[in-house]
């Protein structure tokens, strides 16, 4: 399977984009020519030059450095979010599929409620309760997205639970906990990875959307959505400032989406 994945051009492109964003996030202190938050009012709206490759913004901060640090902010939120969602989703989904009717119905109902609830309201409220900061943004996205993950795992697990090998494991005296860990999770893992990869993309988009609305992160943070928001006044004078951060969001999200969808194609024997 890994071999077929590496022959898929879409997967390669996705991986390459992921790698670029990942490197930008990890190496931003080394790569960035300036401190992303160092303001210099003499350099406001500076045109691109060797020292400021992409120019400077309305406070004279280096655009390139801010974009590089933006990768850090974006992945620094999205990776923990997905880690929590993965554990939570697997736990709750397996619980729903394996532990009888009543827990399953309760889980389904709670998921339905959360899915029907406007995500934005959940996120704003959670951020409001916890205050501004990376931790509260992480939690806000987890609260907004967990129901989708739990429901997805539950439906895959329920499908898997109906198969004969599970019955065989049960008959040979395998307990529920062991059944979930040794049989269920390994078998739904591939589909789950697809969901995780595209989930990172959704999370990146959500983080930038929140930051754009001014939710969660301190306004001076170098984050792509926030940069777009503060650049909107320059739509007539410096439209390129509205283009750069968006390209970064697109690259990051497209990387994870391309990889995830290519993985799905390979799993489903297409492409």
């Amino acid at each position, binding site marked *: 399977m890994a071999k077929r994945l590496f022959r898929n051009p*879409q997967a390669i492109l996705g991986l390459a984009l992921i790698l670029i964003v990942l490197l930008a996030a990890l190496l931003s202190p080394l790569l960035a020519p300036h401190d992303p938050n160092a303001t210099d009012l003499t350099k406001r709206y500076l045109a691109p030059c060797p020292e400021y490759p992409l120019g400077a913004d309305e406070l004279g901060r280096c655009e390139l450095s801010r974009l590089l640090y933006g990768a850090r902010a974006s992945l620094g939120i999205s990776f923990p979010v997905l880690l929590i969602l993965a554990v939570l989703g697997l736990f709750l989904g397996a619980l729903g599929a394996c532990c009888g009717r009543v827990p399953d119905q309760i889980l*389904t*109902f*709670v*998921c*339905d*409620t*959360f*899915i*029907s*609830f*406007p*995500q*934005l*309201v*959940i996120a*704003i*409220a*959670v951020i*409001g*309760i916890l205050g501004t900061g990376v931790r509260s943004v992480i939690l806000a996205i987890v609260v907004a997205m967990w129901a989708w993950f739990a*429901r997805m795992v539950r*439906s895959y697990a329920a499908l898997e639970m109906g198969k004969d090998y599970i019955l065989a494991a049960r008959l040979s005296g395998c307990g529920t906990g062991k059944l979930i860990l040794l049989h269920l999770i390994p078998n739904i893992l591939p589909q789950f990875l697809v969901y995780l990869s595209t989930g990172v*993309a959704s999370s990146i*988009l959500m983080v*930038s*959307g929140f930051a*754009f*609305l001014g939710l969660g992160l301190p306004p001076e943070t170098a984050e792509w*959505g926030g940069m*777009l928001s503060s650049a*909107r006044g320059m*739509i*007539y004078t410096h*439209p390129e400032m*509205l*283009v750069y*951060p*968006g390209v970064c*969001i*697109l690259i990051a*999200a*497209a990387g994870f*989406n*391309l990889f995830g*969808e290519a993985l799905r194609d390979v799993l489903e024997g297409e*492409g």
Partner: protein
Amino acid sequence: MKHYILRRALTFLLVLLGVSILSFALIGLFGRDPAEIIARRTNIYATYEQIEEVRCSMGLDKPLPARYLAWLAGLVRGDVGVSIYSFKPIMEDVGRYLPVSLALVGLSLAWVVLVSLPVSLLCALWPGGKADHAVRFGSVVGLSFPTFWLGFLLLIAFAVKRPIFTVLPAPGLKGYLLPSFALSVPVFSGFIRVFRASLLKEMGSDYADFARARGLSRGRILTRHALRNALPPVVTMFCQYLGYLIAGGAVVENVFSLSGLGTYLVGCVAAADSTAVATCAVIVAAVFVTANLLGDLANRLLCPWAAREDSHG
């Protein structure tokens, strides 16, 4: 069928109840004092007494569960009181903002149908071709577009560089064209992926094979047979988005300076207006659940031979 309708109706009410309780709980935990927000709006240096006075007059001195029950009773009567965010009756606010959101969502879904239907059909007619590959790649990229950024790009291209549209919303349909398109791009990209896969699955089925053996052309099999059978997952998705986009449009509303329900909701949450938030959340959830229900029923009409029991929510 009777049992099915009864069960769905019950779930419908339970989910709405859950949504409203969740709204109150979230706002209750919010930690901001709505009375203080109101008092400070007229007088930044409001005293403790003045704040308490506002609290009593707005009925905010009662405990949260009591306020919830009062709101619930109001909802049944059709009058949920005045918003402490806008100082207008909440129903009036909803009456003003909801049509904007519905127009935005309606037009977005029109874009979705307009783009994804022909593109998916073409992909399914010539699978594996150059166009098919391009569409598959393009749809993943489209899925990754931040809608607000796309909004700005559209504004730069069509309002700043070539002033066909205006940055501030024009009255009537024209003001909705760009925002609805921006909102629809990730949606129709997702649609194309699901629709194309579903069409190809049908085109690979035994009946499509036999239809070829009957002498039918691929085009006719696609439009007369595969299309209808491929619709259920797409219909389900369509109805999900119908509800999802109403509140999810807030970001795009912001870019295009439209005041829809999403923007109103953001303001209400910030003002700790639990009754307005709960009302909007219930309306959004009601649209969401109803749309899902309609999708289910539509699928039962489309493919009555596949009475599916696994369709939740």
